[in-house]
């Protein structure tokens, strides 16, 4: 994972953790995960937990808004805000 773009790492994490029957590269950075891929609150929560486990990012309710988790690009921004080096090319 270390040599991949952060966005690609996030797509892999999403497909793996949610056990989705699809390939990570089917998801575009700007896809609306709720509208296009039908993610629900339970799955968004799994992403939140994944960010904690994989990137060590702990979110409180004040940090959270659905908008920040609607697209891979937005989630990547959340990660970079807390860790500017996340997903840097190795």
């Amino acid at each position, binding site marked *: 994972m270390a040599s991949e773009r952060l966005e690609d790492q996030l797509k892999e994490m999403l497909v*793996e953790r949610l056990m989705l029957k699809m390939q990570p590269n089917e998801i575009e950075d700007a896809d609306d995960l709720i509208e296009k891929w039908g993610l629900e*609150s*339970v799955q968004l*929560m799994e992403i*939140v937990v994944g960010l904690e486990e994989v990137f060590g990012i702990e979110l*409180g*309710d004040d940090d959270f808004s659905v908008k920040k988790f609607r697209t891979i690009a937005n989630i990547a921004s959340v990660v970079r805000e807390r860790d500017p080096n996340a997903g840097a090319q190795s």
Partner: protein
Amino acid sequence: MPNPETPGFLTAADGTPLHGIYHAPAGKAKGVCVIAPPLFEERKSAYGGLTLLARALAERGFGAFRFDFRGSGESGGDAGQRRWNHLVEDLKTAGDAARQLAKDVPVTLIGTRLGGTLALAHSSAVNAKAVVAIAPVLKGATEVRLWRLRSKMRAELSGKENEQTNAPSTTKGEILDLDGFPVAKSFFEDLKPVDLLGASQQAAIPTLVIQVSHREKASGEYERLQEQLGAPARLACIRALPFWERVDDADVSGIAECVLEFVTQLITDR
């Protein structure tokens, strides 16, 4: 047709009526299992899966007693007044009932999520001979934070965030509205110090911890829990979607097989 399922009410020591359902095996029970559910939204979603688990146990000759903690399901009691010690009391009441329903056989305590945490921490209150904890909540403080976050998320997704004054939960006196479920503020305070990974007590009875996730192998936290619980503890990792988060297509077959193997082995070892 499933084995007979008998609903009824128990009475906790303080008079609170608790609803339970006994799944009887054909013939004399080899053992009896008390099934402690999760709380809040997870209880609703887990209902179907835990019913299937109880039926699977009954089919293999074990009595299975499912119940609702006070303030949830069909049990009485005020959810807004519920504290951690009430849950321990309810667990004990359910254990006593199971012992009456299937006499002179060992009791195994099976808990899911917060029910699993209770089972691990308070098996002695039930005088259980074994414990199964399915995806127990490991750290209360983390779970409280995630519950609040989930509540805010659901409010946003349903367009109700403004009704909740932009807060994850509304406060009415000392009672919080957690995604539609009343919770005593003090219950969260009770839960915050609960830390299975920080506890020093080793398991005194055979214990099975089941991690249910996308993983093929158990996570570091679960391995730490097993190590801490010591020799009587086994750790199983089931790759499946969490049934306590899904009302539809909950597949508990892998979990049920794992539990059945464990309780059957206990009988063989007696």
